[in-house]
């Protein structure tokens, strides 16, 4: 369970930090352009952090005590492929969740 003190600390600092990122240029830095190499790296931050966050959760799921598990693995593959092919987040969630529950039902 998440500690309440830590939760509020994270909420407030993350709120302030997110606002600072949003306000950084519009409010403070003005229209001085950033060097291209920084922009080039910034473009890939989300796509570099999120897959790394999710990979261990898929390979070593918490619910099975860290043992790789077929329904969860299949659900993950279906979700990512559906997302790439259809570009539709909700459809990908729906197909992934259907695979998970279908798989859990079939394989127990």
């Amino acid at each position: 369970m998440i500690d309440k003190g830590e939760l509020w600390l994270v909420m407030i600092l993350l709120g302030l930090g997110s606002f600072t990122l949003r306000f950084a240029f519009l409010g403070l830095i003005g229209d001085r352009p950033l060097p291209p190499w920084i922009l080039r790296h910034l473009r890939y931050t989300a796509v570099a952090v999120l897959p790394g966050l999710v990979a261990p959760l898929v390979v070593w799921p918490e619910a099975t005590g860290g043992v790789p598990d077929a329904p969860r693995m299949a659900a993950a593959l279906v979700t990512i492929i559906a997302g790439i092919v259809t570009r539709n987040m909700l459809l990908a969630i729906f197909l992934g969740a259907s695979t998970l529950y279908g798989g859990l039902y079939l394989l127990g």
Partner: protein
Amino acid sequence: MPTESSKSIFFQGVRDSAPFILVMVPFSTLFGVVAAEAGLNVFEAVTFSFLVIAGAAQFTAIELMRNDAPTLIVLISSLAVNLRMAMYSASLVPYLGKATLAQRAWAAYFIVDQTYACSILKFDARREWTVKQRLIYFFGVAAPVCPPWYLFTGVGAVVGQAIPESFALDFAIPIMFLALIGPMMRTRAHVAAGFVSVATALIFAFLPYNLGLLVAGLLGMMAGAQVELIDSRRAERSGS
């Protein structure tokens, strides 16, 4: 051409972003559910959405806190996911940079993927708009996107407290993230960043304090930037 009234511009914004409600409602509901599963009450979940309004960063923070990651790692990882907001901020400067400080601060708070995407398209198409008209449009775009984000986080948190354990909700977070990641894979560079991130995170999973994720993020970013550089040079050489 007749001058447009403030009201009509506001409602143009509302209309342009209204389709996003279809995405925001389930997404924020899901955040509420996941937050409730992680032990947050309704007030905490809604406050979280109100302070941060950034889905991917909120999910990241909850997931890392659930795994007892150190607070500093939680903050760095979640803010890294949000770094794109700084890019949005930079690209809005030519259009909103002349607004008053208070107006810019309010606009900054409402910069999210959807408000940015709608506004930048419109501002580019309607070069004749004044700063005031642009701001009115921007807040019109935010109206159907941000308030439902808070509201349905609350709905999700209420629902989440009622969902029994047997629903395998442990896997809601991975599915959520994967569904977010799929549509991000727009170019070879994005795919490279994603692959390097996954491989690095798995190899360095043994590192304490979730430091593996920071290594993965750093190497993934560098991979994406490098591939972009290589591909843009190749495109130049082929004379396109």
